[in-house]
């Protein structure tokens, strides 16, 4: 009986220590560990797993040790993260310094060297962490925490790596990418600034929004034309199939179907879903971005409905809405609204 308990105890220890290669050996001041999206105060003896970050403040410091005798010194005002990536020889540990200063001392017994990542050396990392800020004016700000992200708008792509960001105005190509280091991301002020410039010139803002919607509509039209062509081809081939079924029997019909109709079906399904994707994106844009601007403008000019600028805005808004009704609504149904 005692043996069973011993085996269970050893098994529990083995399970709980599995994967814990790095531990905190010294902490000076207040140091945080960010694990699974939550912050914890760090204490000596805490273990770190892949994905965990050590965050030091302006007057704190931490030392880490790995089982293979390497030491890591995290200086004040730094963010240090242990990551894992798939390398040519399997999983590789990445010791990543997001910001600040970190020193490394590797022991003699160290086997496979880990990868030391800096903000300019992360393209190879698999998996991506990014933050998307969507502003009330339809602008988007993307900030990448790790991995490689390709941002595309209006047919132009920008590759972002760790600690890079880019802003995309509605209906425009992505702007110049920028570094996130030393830049505090404050969504509230970014969003307020964007909306203020929109309200200062609603006609230009609406023009950009119209371009964005036109971008969605163009995709819908291209895909719908393709789908219509494929469906016509399918109908034509199905008639031939019916003829073969009648004249040559079920087995011949089946062989003809597998070879000629089924490949078309494999293409039409995803095409239809892509059309729906762009239609739903348009609906969301119309509802939350265009709709929000329309309501705000209506409230602002409630006492001055004949104002020239407001009337111009309304006329432009009607054109955008007509385009939406004509090209997007046919692909929507009650479930979407």
């Amino acid at each position, binding site marked *: 009986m005692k043996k069973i308990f011993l085996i269970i105890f050893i098994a529990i220890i083995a399970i709980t220590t599995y994967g814990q290669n790095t531990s905190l050996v010294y902490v000076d001041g207040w140091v945080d560990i960010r694990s699974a999206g939550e912050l914890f105060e760090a204490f000596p003896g805490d273990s770190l797993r892949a994905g965990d970050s050590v965050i030091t403040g302006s007057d704190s410091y931490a030392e880490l040790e790995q089982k293979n005798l390497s030491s890591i010194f995290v200086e004040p005002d730094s963010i240090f993260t242990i990551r894992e990536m798939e390398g040519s020889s399997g999983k590789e540990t990445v010791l990543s310094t997001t910001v600040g200063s970190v020193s490394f001392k590797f022991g003699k017994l160290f086997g496979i060297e880990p990868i030391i990542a800096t903000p300019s050396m992360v393209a190879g990392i698999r998996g991506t962490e990014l933050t998307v800020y969507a502003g009330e004016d339809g602008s988007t700000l993307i900030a990448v925490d790790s991995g490689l992200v390709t941002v595309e708008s209006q047919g132009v792509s920008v590759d972002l790596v760790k600690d890079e960001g880019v802003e995309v105005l509605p209906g425009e190509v992505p702007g110049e990418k920028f570094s996130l280091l030393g830049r505090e991301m404050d969504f509230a002020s970014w969003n307020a600034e964007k909306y203020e410039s929109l309200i200062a010139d609603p006609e230009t803002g609406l023009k950009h929004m119209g371009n964005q919607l036109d971008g969605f509509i163009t995709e819908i039209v291209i895909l719908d034309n393709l789908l219509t062509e494929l469906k016509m081809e399918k109908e034509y081939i199905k008639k031939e199939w019916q003829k073969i079924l009648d004249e040559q029997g079920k087995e011949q019909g089946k062989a003809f179907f597998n070879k000629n109709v*089924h490949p078309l079906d494999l293409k039409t*399904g995803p095409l*239809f879903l892509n059309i729906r994707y762009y239609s739903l994106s348009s609906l969301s844009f119309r509802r939350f971005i265009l709709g929000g601007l329309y309501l705000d403008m209506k409230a602002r000019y409630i006492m001055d409905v004949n104002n020239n600028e407001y009337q111009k805005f309304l006329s432009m808004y009607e054109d955008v809405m007509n385009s939406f009704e004509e090209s997007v609504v046919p692909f929507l149904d009650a479930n979407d609204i």
Partner: protein
Amino acid sequence: MYKKIVLVLTVFALVMIISSCGALLGNSIEERVQQFEIDLNGSRSSIIENFSSDCGNYNAMNIATYWSDNTSVFDDDYKTFNIVIPSDPAETFTTTYSDNAGGPYNIKFYLVNEGDFFSGDNWKIRTIWVDDSVQIN
């Protein structure tokens, strides 16, 4: 003491009743794929319920025309669909299906368990590949 025992037993019985009711509502992987097949061959009005709302295409396919129109490999005209469901399938498994028009085709399912302690297993379809081509994701 007697009252405490009754109270503990009552709570235990309630938990058992709730969890067993939930378990009746849930679905194993096998049952989910069977239900999908039944819905494909039936009215299709509730077919969306076989899918996880985590599917990227969930909203896109939540429209009657996708299931009733001659748009996909699951064309309504091809009834009856017959999916060969292996016993005790894994969360990702490949099998074959045929329909009234042709086949057999390779079909691969990836399911996720959306159940919890009270509902029991409730597997939902997350991705479907047909002949290595992603059809629903």
